[in-house]
């Protein structure tokens, strides 16, 4: 007996809850060398931008304890190449695509949402709100509830009605629930939590920043406690809103931790660097963990750790 792993992101049903995280699963082709990407719940694309981007200079990544700092800077081919090459390839594989978008202004987000949903193929549009706003001196949209809501309102209006819009939030705000509420009020059908946390490392021998870009985003197991906390707080405040949880998931147990906190799907980022088979392995481990606990449907585990506790004598 194996568990029923199906889950839903708003009205979109996925065969299982394990996704790649944006920018961590390549175009899908890289991982398809190792396994069939249609076995993923979905592949989340790197954040797509209007123009092609060369990204940031190297070194772009640095190892920190149980974490990785990155300042890749969303290197990518731009929306045109994505639509003519990457997306058709994914659909041809039978894979589902969560398409992440990033723009420096509301207008750019709108343009991206329109272009990407003109044709069918995009299962979910994930709005990367950690992107620096050109209109607010490089401050990320996700730092502010009203800036976030403005983007979401515009994207929701521009995207095809049947493509759910998920807002991807940053954890480094004093009140993530306030930002989440604002996004949902603005029309987001769901939330993706969390993006990387701004961090930095110094190469002590060179006495220089380890990254060419000086600061970068921290990911990996180091940030999992932040992810669990954000998912928990947002699920407690907005129990009906689907959450894609992510941050430091390396094993099926870690995925289960986010599901118990309230995530209905789990995205795997940095783990793909450590293990090219991470996603199918985590899916299998999650399935085993659920079965071992007598849980027959993954959906039953969502938010389970929130149930009121009977005080047990210890």
């Amino acid at each position, binding site marked *: 007996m194996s568990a029923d792993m199906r889950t839903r992101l708003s009205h979109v049903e996925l065969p299982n809850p394990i996704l790649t995280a944006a920018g961590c699963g390549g175009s899908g082709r890289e991982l398809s060398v190792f396994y069939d990407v249609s076995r993923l719940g979905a592949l989340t694309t790197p954040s797509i931008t209007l123009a092609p981007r060369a990204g940031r200079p190297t*070194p772009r990544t640095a190892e920190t304890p149980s974490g990785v700092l990155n300042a890749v800077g969303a290197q990518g081919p731009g929306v045109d190449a994505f639509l003519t090459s990457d997306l058709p390839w994914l659909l041809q594989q039978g894979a589902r695509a969560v398409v992440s978008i990033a723009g420096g202004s509301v207008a750019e987000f709108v343009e991206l949402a329109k272009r990407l949903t003109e044709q069918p193929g995009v299962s979910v549009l994930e709005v990367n709100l950690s992107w620096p706003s050109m209109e607010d001196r490089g401050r*990320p949209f996700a730092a502010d509830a009203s800036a976030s809501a403005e983007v979401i309102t515009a994207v929701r209006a521009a995207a095809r009605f049947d493509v759910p819009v998920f807002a991807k939030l940053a954890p480094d705000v004093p009140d993530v629930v306030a930002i989440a509420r604002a996004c949902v009020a603005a029309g987001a059908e769901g939330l993706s939590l969390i993006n990387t946390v701004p961090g930095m490392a110094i190469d002590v021998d060179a006495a220089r920043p380890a990254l060419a870009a000086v600061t970068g985003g921290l990911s990996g197991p180091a940030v999992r406690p932040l992810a669990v906390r954000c998912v928990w707080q947002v699920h407690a405040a907005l129990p009906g809103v689907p959450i894609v949880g992510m941050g430091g998931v390396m094993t099926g147990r870690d995925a289960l931790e986010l599901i118990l906190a309230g995530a209905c799907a789990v995205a795997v980022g940095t783990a793909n660097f450590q293990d090219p088979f991470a996603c199918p392995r985590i899916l299998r481990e999650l399935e085993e963990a659920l079965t071992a606990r007598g849980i027959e449907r993954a959906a039953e585990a969502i938010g389970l750790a929130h149930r009121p506790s009977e005080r047990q004598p210890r």
Partner: protein
Amino acid sequence: MTVVAPAIAERFRPGQFVAISVGGTGSPMLMRRGLPIHDVKPDYGGTVEFVFPADLPGAGWLAERRVRDSLDLVGPLGRPFPVPRDPVHCVLVGSGYGSAGLFMLADRLQQRGSRVDFVLGATSADRVFGALRARRMGQTATLATEDGSLGVRGRVTDVLPQVIEDARGDVVYACGPMAMLRTVAAVATEFAIPSQVAVREIVGCGTGVCMSCVLPVIGEDGITRMVRSCVEGPVFRGERLRFDDVGTIPFDALGAPGARGPVEGFRER
């Protein structure tokens, strides 16, 4: 270090590498280290031998592994050295543990009837990798150490021009630190012969998903792109790799920050 890995041993072609994971399950070190494959042998169904530098983060853990411990490695990865169909004169240049990647190549070249001359070097004698083997295999083997403790005092690139001349080299193959590859490529250009250089330090995923390992490379179409050395390399044609611009995004690279792209914020993710 030698590991039993039949699937890697079978598919391996010279120039490819393995990406190894250090620290075991739950390790605080999350990135893989790309290491040149030194040798593959048919023993025990197929073994793979690779070399790692003593100062590699995680080297201590690797050195502690004992017989029959299992090791997590992915490979063979990357594009191999192109090997000419017809016999030619090949000069193989290696520095430090980068030399490790050259012996399987030499073997393959010699099988095709090519002549192989080695130039190996390192900071000091104890860091020169494979000097004996190079002497056995190569038509000639020239050694250079910075402290003069073995062979000529100096760098491999100091002796390379003479070797190319003596051997009437048709092509140069090299593996070593970036600065050395840069000089190798420049020397080859001076001789108007092609060079094939394998970059060595690949830390990240090794599989093309993390975007850590990009280098500015000029494509067939003349356009510079930031390409991943783990999947589009580690072997590049020397004249295509823009050594002077490594560590930057050249202004003329595809998608370089310019009029059209979004501005770079102080913390972009």
